[in-house]
C-alpha cells in the first residue's frame, strides 16, 4: 500500500512556515524532499496556503464584536418571544376547534329541524344511485375539460409555489 504520510512531514512543514526553506535547511532535508513525493507536495502547497492565509487575514473586514454580540442578543430575544408565543397560538386554535365542535354537537342534539334534515339526507343518500351521475359527469368533463384541467393545475401549483417560497425564505 502506498504511504500517505511521512515522518519528516512536520519538519518540512515547519521549515517552510518559518521561511527557512530551501536555503536554510540541512542538505539532508533537501535530499529527502527531492526523493519523497509527500514532502515535495507539502513544500509545494504549504507556503502558498500560508501566504494566502496571511493575505486574507490582513484584508479581512469583519464586523465589530460588539455589533455581532448586540445583533445576536436581539435575535435571540426575538426568537425566544416567537417561541413563547407559538404554544399559546396552538392552544388557542385547539380551544376554538373544541368550542366549535361542542357548539355543533349541542345544536345537533337540540335542533329538531336539523335532525329531520339529517334523516332526510341519510334516506336520500341510501336511495341514491351513483351510476346515474356518470353520463352527466362525462358530458360535463367533455364540455369543460380545459377548465377542469386548469383548476386542477391551480390546486396543485399554488400549494407547491407557496411551499417553495417558504422553503427559500
Amino acid at each position: 500500500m502506498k504511504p500517505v504520510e511521512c515522518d519528516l512531514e512536520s519538519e518540512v512543514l515547519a521549515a517552510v512556515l518559518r521561511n527557512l526553506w530551501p536555503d536554510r535547511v540541512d542538505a539532508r532535508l533537501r535530499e529527502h524532499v527531492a526523493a519523497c513525493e509527500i514532502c515535495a507536495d507539502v513544500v509545494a502547497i504549504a507556503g502558498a496556503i500560508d501566504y494566502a492565509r496571511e493575505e486574507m487575514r490582513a484584508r479581512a473586514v469583519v464586523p465589530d464584536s460588539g455589533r455581532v454580540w448586540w445583533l445576536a442578543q436581539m435575535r435571540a430575544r426575538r426568537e425566544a418571544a416567537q417561541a413563547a408565543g407559538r404554544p399559546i397560538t396552538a392552544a388557542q386554535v385547539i380551544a376554538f376547534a373544541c368550542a366549535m365542535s361542542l357548539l355543533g354537537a349541542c345544536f345537533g342534539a337540540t335542533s329538531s329541524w336539523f335532525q329531520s334534515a339529517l334523516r332526510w339526507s341519510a334516506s336520500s343518500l341510501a336511495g341514491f344511485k351513483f351510476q346515474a351521475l356518470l353520463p352527466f359527469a362525462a358530458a360535463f368533463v367533455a364540455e369543460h375539460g380545459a377548465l377542469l384541467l386548469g383548476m386542477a393545475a391551480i390546486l396543485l401549483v399554488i400549494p407547491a409555489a407557496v411551499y417553495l417560497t417558504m422553503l427559500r425564505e
Partner: protein
Amino acid sequence: MFRETAFNDIQRDSALDDTSAGFVMDEETFRAFYERTARGLWAYLARLTGDRQLAEDLLQETFYRFLRAANTYENETHRRNSLYRIATNLARDVRRRSLARAASVPAGDDIERVPSGQDAGATERMTDFTRAMSRLKPRERAMLWLAYAEGASHREIAEVLGVRSTSLKPMLFRARRKLAGLLGRAPHGGKP
C-alpha cells in the same frame, strides 16, 4: 492544535452565562473569543465559499449559532473546533442550496481581488492559488485550509468535517497531491 491558542480563562464560562439570551458565554468572554477567531474564520469561509460578502454573513450566523448552542466546552481548542464545525456545515448548506437553485457556485473570483500597491508577482501567485483552490472539492479545500492555514491536527480536522480520523489521512494526501499538481509543483516551493 489550532494556531493562536492561548486562552486560559475557560473556567469563567460557566459562571458568566448570559441567561437572558441563553448564550453559552457572557459578552466579555465572547468579545475576546471573537477577536481571536473572527479573522481566521472569515478567511476560512471566504476560501470555502469564494465570496467575501457571503463569508461575512456566514461568519455572523456561525457566531450566533455558536452562542445559542447549549454546549459546554472543555477548552479553547474544543470551542474553536465547534465554531469551525458550525461554519463548515453552514457553508455546505449554502452550497447545497445554490446547487438546488442551479446557480453556479462562486469559483473564488470575488476573493481574488488583491489591493493595489502589491507587486504584480504576488498578485499573480495569489490569483493562481485561488484558481487552483477553486478547482478542488469544497471538502478538500476545507481540509487543506484547516491543516496548513489553521494548523489543525488530523483529529481536529476530522472532528470539524465530520469524518473519521482514519479516513482523513488518505483524503488529505489526495487533496494535497491534487493542489500541488494544480499549482504546478513549484521546484523550490516555500512562500511566494
